[in-house]
Structures are given as C-alpha cells and as structure tokens.
C-alpha cells in the first residue's frame, strides 16, 4: 500500500468545509472562535445556503470573521449587529441572517439593540460568544465577567459593590415573547462541539419558520485574556463559568 491508496476520495471521512477559506486564522491557540466559525461554515455547506446567508460581524476578536467564512458579510459598529440584522432580514426575508457577537458587544454596548431585536421577534439567529472578557482590546472586564474574576480593568477581581454582578443576558432574553430558542452550549469537547453544531443549525432553521429570534450562547475560553494554557482554560471554564452559565436549553418553542 502506498500513500495514494490512503489519500483517496473513497476513504474520505471528514474534510474542512468549503465555506471556510484558507486565510490563516488570527485567533489564539485554545480560543473557541475558530471552532464556532467552522461549525457555522459546515452548517451553511450542509444546508446548501451559502448564497442565501448574510452574516453580521461584531466589533471584537470576531470583527474579522468575514476573512474566514466565505459568505456575504456586513461589519457592524460595536453592539449594533442586531439592528443591522433586523433591516437585512426585513428587506430580504428569504435569506438566513445571523449575527456573531461577543459578550461586550451583545451584553454591554449593544444591550438595547439585542433586547429590542429579540422583543420584536426578528427572525434572525444570534451567535453569542461568552468568554467573560474583552479579548480584542486586551482582557478588560466584561458584563459577563465572574465575581472575583481578574481582568485588566478588575486586576484584583470583579467586586460586586464596584462593578455589579455578572449579567446573565440569555436568561433575560429567554423571558421575551419574541424569542423562540435560547440555548447555552460550549465547544471544549468533541461531544459539546456536536451539540453546539445541532443548536446552531436549529437556530438557522428557526429563522425561516417565522417563530422569532434564536440565541445560541457559546460559553467560551479566552486563554490569552485569562492568561492560561488552552487546557487550563477548558478546565477553568468548566469549573468556574459553567456554574454561573449552566449548559442546556433555556427556551425551545
């Protein structure tokens, strides 16, 4: 047997989705963004909706999402992705429109746009990356930063009397009548990746069923911002983030 017998299309069991291009990723080792990008690419390919999908990129580490996923994109001002998505979906109702937002983008500066898009029941899919930190700007405190968690702007740990509480925005959004699906997932194990993929796909499918807004929160790691190795980050996330942001569906109509 030589190598061409092995590398043969008949033996192919898995390959990189064509919706992901070959641009080298700028994400840090251990970061969840790359996996979530790949899942979105796979879902778009499998649903055969590349020509019907418009992504809205945030401000934050994923600002360059359009460099990796081969679809039409609009890059939004910080926090405004749900407003853009609202207009895109209303004017192009037969398209799949999703936003990809971090915790600072979605739950701090863009809280109003997020809540009101959800309250109107916009038929969009919101992918919400929650790593409890502002990654792009160098690890500052986010609305979802845990109590006592250190960041560059809470160097002694988040103190409730000064900074308030971690904002569990998915719980808030799950209460809204315009929202049909809220789920909290992660991508730190093979099993969790598969579950997250199903959740994202469901969110995409919901957007064509006129049921309202779908939110898929991915509790994520930021090893650079957390100043840990990728393996340490995964463990830290399970031990510290999951108790505050438990896995599973919060709403599924």
């Amino acid at each position: 047997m030589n190598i061409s017998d092995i590398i043969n299309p008949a033996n192919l069991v898995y390959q990189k989705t064509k919706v992901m291009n070959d641009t080298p990723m700028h994400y840090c080792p251990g970061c969840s963004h790359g996996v979530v990008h790949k899942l979105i690419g796979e879902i778009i390919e499998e649903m055969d909706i590349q020509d019907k999908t418009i992504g809205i990129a945030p401000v934050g580490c994923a600002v360059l999402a359009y460099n990796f996923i081969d679809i039409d994109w609009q890059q939004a001002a910080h926090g405004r992705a749900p407003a853009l998505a609202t207009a895109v979906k209303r004017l192009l109702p037969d398209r799949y429109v999703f936003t990809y937002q971090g915790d600072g983008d979605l739950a701090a500066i863009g809280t109003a746009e997020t809540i009101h898009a959800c309250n109107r029941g916009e038929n969009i899919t919101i992918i919400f990356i929650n790593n409890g930190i502002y990654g792009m700007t160098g690890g500052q405190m986010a609305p979802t930063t845990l109590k006592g968690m250190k960041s560059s702007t809470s160097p002694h740990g988040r103190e409730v009397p000064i900074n308030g509480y971690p904002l569990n925005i998915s719980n808030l959004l799950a209460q809204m009548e315009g929202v049909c699906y809220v789920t909290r997932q992660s991508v730190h194990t093979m099993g969790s990746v598969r579950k997250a993929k199903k959740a994202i796909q469901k969110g995409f499918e919901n957007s064509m069923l006129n049921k309202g807004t779908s939110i898929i929160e991915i509790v994520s790691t930021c090893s650079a911002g957390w100043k840990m190795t990728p393996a340490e980050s995964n463990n830290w996330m399970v031990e510290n983030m999951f108790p505050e942001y438990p896995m599973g569906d919060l709403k599924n109509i």
Partner: protein
Amino acid sequence: MNQHKKEITLLKGNEAVAHAAIRCGCDGYFGYPITPQSEILETLTELEPWKTTGMVVLQAESEVASINMVYGAAGCGKRAMTTSSSPGISLMLEGISYLAGAQLPCVIVNVMRGGPGLGTIQPSQADYFQAVKGGGHGDYKMITLAPASVQEMADFTVLAFDLAFKYLTPTMILADGIIGQMMEKVVLPPYQPRRTEDEIKKECPWATLGKPADRKPNVINSLRLEAADMEKLNLLLQSRYREIEKEEVRFEEFDCEDADYIIVAFGICARICQKTVQLARAEGIKVGLIRPITLFPFPTKQINRYADRVKGMLTVEMNAGQMVEDVRLAVNGKTIVEYYGRMGGIVPAPDEVLIALKTKFSNIES
C-alpha cells in the same frame, strides 16, 4: 389615476418627505420619534406602504438603532432612509461615520431644532457645522441639501437618493422646524417602482444579497487594520468629495447682478431674506441674495464671483454664525462678510434683517 396630471396637494414639509419617499421607490425607513419631525414616521405608518410598494417602515428603539438599520439595509443595496431632529442626529453620528467609511448610500433628514442639549423644539439651523464639517469621527463629508420649501422637501428626497447612489455616500437633507412644520402646495413626484433584486445586483455589485458560487464574498466594512490601506480608503473618499464639489454645486441667486450688498442665507432664512431684498430695494438699497442649496458642496466659486463687485456680504442664519465661515473662505478677504442671526429657536423677521444690514454696513446710503 392619470399619471400625466400634476397632483397638487397641501402638505406639511414632513408629510411631503414621507410621500416622496414612498413614491421614489424607497425600500426601507427606520426612525424614532422626535419633535419637530415625528410626522414623517406618523405619515408613513398611516400610509402603510408595505401593503402597496412593499417598503419596510419600522419604528426603532433609538436613533442609534435607526441609523444602524439604515446601514444594514444600505449594505444590501436597498434605498434606505432615516429622519430625526438635532439631538437624535447627534446620536446617529457614529453610524453616519460608519456609513461614510463603508461607502454606503442612504438618505438622512435632519429637521433642525434649537440646541445645544435638549434645547428647544423650535426651528434652528445650528447643526450646519455638524452636517457639513463632518460631525462624526474621521475625515468624511456628506452631500447636504438645504430645502427652503415644502416642494423642495419632496423634490430633495428623490434627489438625495439619486446623489447618494451616484456617489456612494450618505446624503443629508438639512431642513429646519419651519420647513418641516409649515404647509404649502406641493406637486408630489411621480411613482417609480422599487428596484428589483436583479436591478440592485446590476447597480450595486457590492451589495450583500447572498454570495453566489461565481463571485467572491461581498463585505460591507469600514475597517482597515493596515494604515496604508486606511489611507488608500481616505484618498478614495477625498477624490469622490472633490468630484462632488466639481459636479453637484446647487444654488439660487436673486437680484445679484447690480447688487451693492449680498445676503447669503439657506433654508427658511433664504425665504425670509427674499422679503428683505424687496424691502431694501424699495428704499433704494441694492441688495441681492444668494441661497446655497447644497451646503456641501458649498457654492464657493459662485459667491466668490461677486466678491470684487459688492461692498459687503451678510449671512443670515438661525445659529451663532456658522455658514459665515464658509462665505468668508469663499471671498477670501476680498470683501467684508458680516453675520446676523438668531438662536435657540427664534426666527428673524425680514425688517429685522434689513435693520441689521444697515447697522453692520453703516456706510449704506439709501
């Protein structure tokens, strides 16, 4: 309906904007209530164009959301617009800068009220600087049209869309509370259908309508991480602004050929000063009037043409003296340029302007 018959109707300026938007094939309106322009959103929701032309009308949660909805719609090559009044426009400036940076066409109407701060709901022209000098961050310009009648509120809505798409730039109609609120006869523009998706693809090959297999992804974006790329984008924008300055200056002049003094005024002040010109001429003072219609591009050369021939110019503005700076730049020291204005929502009267003219130029002999 007989399309050839002119439809004359009596409307408020704000209502005229709403009717004209529907008629000129606007795809989406996104707005938030604020006095003195709420009739635009009210008229649109009353007319329910989503049942006729398919135009989307949405009351947003804020001006911040409105302008970003406009961004989303414009990014799809759609004809999108928003309207507001001064404090609301301040909230939109971030979005306007992004629209300019992303080279997106859209129409923004500012029915100005007195400021600063929450100010007053009475008419003002105090957002001149904000509109023509940038307002938001970064080096950008907006084509700025200054209507002086209800008819122009309708006409400029159509024109603003055409200019926005011609130059891929946000375009502003800078009106004021009087133009928005007053009622006049108006001939509404003829109906033109909203563009089909195929037409949009042809006119706007950059639009995010979904990536077919045979083209690269379209990305609507103002981010350039490399400084050299960012400078390139700036140079492109600047070259477009120079082209706009060359091609799109619009102005009107009255009685300037023999004038000793020229009043320069825009919007409602130009209407008021037409009367001032009559009053002055009745007293034997040869006064003319130049009305800039485009505030950017400013009619610099057209004003400069008279700089050697007059004894002085007077700008009349409902602000603390903003356009006066551009008129001074236009004449470049060749003649004296004075300013007269009222602030905070006060509208000057024609005779008051004549007194100001006589006071400023004490050498006037009638």
